């Protein structure tokens, strides 16, 4: 059980990448990318977890209670925001690409000329 969360994270990375590699739709691709990113939240939070410890919030518990690592949580928080902003930008790009090329399938964007 002690390794399980990490294995899940690795699996999430792989499956997200698989989705990207086989994607036929740019919006689908962007969502798969956000799945890949979510793996990093999993890794970070799993690292900081401690058995039998409470959340790092001392609003109504004594200060001596063991608590899980707050730093990884702060990092994850930042990471979540970064992830969603990048996703938003990518979605805007995908919408714009659809306007331009009238397709979302990457295969249709394949160039026909020598590069």
């Amino acid at each position, binding site marked *: 059980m002690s390794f399980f969360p990490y294995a899940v994270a690795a699996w999430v990375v792989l499956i997200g990448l698989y989705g990207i590699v086989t994607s036929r739709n740019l919006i689908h691709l962007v969502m798969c*990318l956000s799945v890949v990113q979510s793996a990093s939240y999993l890794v970070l939070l799993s690292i900081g977890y401690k058995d039998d410890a409470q959340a790092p919030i001392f609003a109504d518990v004594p200060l001596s209670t063991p608590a899980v690592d707050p730093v990884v949580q702060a990092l994850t928080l*930042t990471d979540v925001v970064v992830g969603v902003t990048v996703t938003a930008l990518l979605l805007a*790009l995908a919408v714009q690409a659809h306007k331009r090329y009238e397709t979302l399938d990457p295969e249709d964007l394949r160039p026909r000329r020598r590069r």
Partner: protein
Amino acid sequence: MSDLAPLTVGIPLIVAAVLVGGAWFVPRRVVDVASLLAASTVAVLCALVLAKASEGQIVYWFGGWQPRHGTAIGVAFAIDQLGGGLALFCALLFVAAFVFSWRYFVTVGPLFHALMLVFLAGMLGFVYTGDLFNLFVFFELMSVAAYALVAYDIEEEGPLQGALNFAVTNTIGAFSILTGIALLYGRTGALNMAQVGSALAGGKPDGLVIVAFTLIVVGFLVKAAVVPFHFWLAGAYSVAPTPVCLLLSAAMSELGLYGLARVYWTAFSGVLDPGDAGLQAVLVGVGALTALVGAAMCFGQRHLKRMLAFATVAHAGLFLIGLGLFDAAGLAGTALYVVADGCVKAAMFVSVGVVQHLRESVDELRLRGRGRDLRLTGPLFAACALAVAALPPFGPFFGKSLVEKAAEDAGLWWAPVVFLLTAALTGGALVRAAGRVFAGLGSAKDPIASDVPGPREVDPELEYRHDRVPRTMTVPAIALALAGLGLGLVPGLIGNLERAAAQFVDRPAYAASVLHARPARPPVKAPSSSPSLLGVLVGLASAAGALALAAAALFRSGLRSRALAASEGLAGALLARLRAIHSGLVPDYVTWLIVGTALLGGLFALTLSG
């Protein structure tokens, strides 16, 4: 005095926020002036910071959270001479870019300027920071600003795909870096680079360390556009607006490599021995591959911006060779090479921008002879092309020969050959372009050149046509070119760089300075070297090779030799293979990224864990 360091990041951010907040009230000229002023102020501040950093490393703790008992609890900037110098270089490039864009975009509001300022802040913070997670955050800031800037010119023909590929691959790169950082945090419980380094030092390079190193290296190599992570670059650069191109090519790729060097020397050098032959072989090998692939692709382009983009790839490979030597001499040479080459390439991008501005095309063949009346831009471009071919005594030559020398000292006898080939091919392509566009030489057909013509754009941002080149465009071109060409001749610069590099690679001193407030000073005396006779010969040879290649490409119909035809066929076949790989599809590029990561990881595992 050390309070100035955070201001270099704060000022552009606050100006950007004000520009956007007041977006609808502020006239365009005010925006121009404000952003130019902000960039210049930042450049001055960077110079002051650099001056201070040469007296000893600046360590600045945000919020005043000094480390307790040698444990960092806050975020710090740690600025040494090399970092300070690089930051100054970036800031100056931004000044040039803002001057150039004075007349470039006419119709757009302040969004462009705000993005540029955010981009500037991202670069500076990335260079200055001494904290791993902060490094990641700045990396993302830089990236997001860059994605938006690349796609900024939405009216042009192909930006979106380039921007999309750029954004997807670089996001995966950033994810890779973050996972690497998470692994390090899990092992060491620290995010400060110095502390991570101290915690890792002396340990054995086990799976976690190697995988973390691989992931971080991959992330930075994606940004630096090193084969096989380079695919996004040409598409992105060839579509970005000229001022953005200048920054991407001259600064951003190089910052990726800087990040690699910084993280390696501060965090990993205690556990992965810099003298390790395997480590060196992997990175130098990847660098050499990148240089050759980039150079070959560069020679096969006719879209001038794509040509410069592949030249950027090729040079990133050369820089990686310099860094991959993992010693101070290689680092110093690379630093000089980066700055000189960056200035030269920025000047060339500006020249292309001028041509595009006047002739509405960036296509080498279509432009043939149409640049003849550009009395200033033509010679400038040609001189820069020769500088790329490492003609002595131009700036890039000095950097290149220093790296070559360091490589030879490290026992890599074949390195000068790679340098020679790369410089000759990239320089040759650019000299060819200069000859065709500005002198009208050669024919308007080229069997080797790519079929992708430069987009036939009528730049909608230019509401009025110019027959004259605005001075705001020529001045930065001249300034950049002069800086790049003359850099190697600045007295004492090389010695200074070598001292700075020696400080950069001294991990224990860095850690002591950051964690225990013991100021690290650059060593007083370092062996100063100058280019050897062999270096000069190699430089002359590569310049001659560039001229010969350009001549062969331009006057092929006049020289009906069988050998030429045969070599042309061979080159064509080789290029066809390479081009097939550059398919322009995101899924392909992501697949290559995965392949590259797995390969690099495997190689590191084989060479390091023994």
